[in-house]
């Protein structure tokens, strides 16, 4: 089973990387970009009998730092 885990900074947490990308887009002449937030995509290939609870535990214990990040699991 293939999973895609999207890890994003929580709303309100300053994202200096997103801000730098935003600035660089402006520097390239792209107008109309209101905001940029950078995150991570982690792809997992797991056995079919791995439970949702185990996947959630993987996210909470390692893949995301829930102090500053949210995560979303997408099944491919």
């Amino acid at each position, binding site marked *: 089973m293939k999973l895609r885990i999207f890890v994003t900074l929580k709303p309100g947490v*300053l994202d*200096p990387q997103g801000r*730098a990308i935003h600035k660089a887009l402006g520097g390239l002449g792209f107008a109309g970009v209101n905001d940029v937030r950078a995150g991570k995509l982690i792809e997992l290939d797991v056995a079919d009998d791995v439970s949702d609870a185990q996947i959630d535990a993987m996210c909470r*214990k390692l893949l995301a730092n829930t*102090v*500053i990040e949210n995560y979303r699991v997408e099944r491919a």
Partner: protein
Amino acid sequence: MKTAVIVFPGSNCDRDIAVALRDVSGTAPTMVWHADTALPDGVGLIALPGGFSYGDYLRSGAIGARSPIMAAVTAAAERGVAVLGICNGFQILTEAGLLPGALMRNAGLDFVCRDVPLTVENAQSAFTSRYGAGERIVIPVAHHDGNYAADEATLDWLEGEGRVAFRYATSVNGSARNIAGILNAAGNVLGLMPHPERRIETAAHGGNDGRRMFEGLFELVA
């Protein structure tokens, strides 16, 4: 007092902290590999050094915090053993849940490597007893991810309990409330971004403001 330095793949300040501990105490620490599962019997101080454990993969300190030795470090911290995390060591302590909050990319995105003035906020911990409250000291920083972040309630709680040990005198990396180092609730775990082990002797380091942290530790944690 017995001391131990945890060595992770990618640690690069492990020898600096070992030299500092040996110089101040007269006894060399035991170097403990991250894949080990036990600490030396009777260890009184555990240091997590600076560096880039696991290449900062995933998040700074994230993989190091899940190393086999960390179960023993956490158990020791719960028993009251002094645990000092410097720079990457601080990142590992937050990732391991031994200290609250997180260390994010510096707000200016730049790697900051210079001497910075700090204010000693709490001079009553085992780590800071040789400093005066409000004293200004100079300790170098060298980091990319030192921007301390926590929600407002956590920050208020830390401040209210006097757990902010050191604050940057002026903004260095965008840290919330200019926090440079924090203590756990029991006061036996300190994480800080600046490198006290790089300010041990004036002739070599241009100052010795870091030395008193270790002098205080060896006096109190006998």
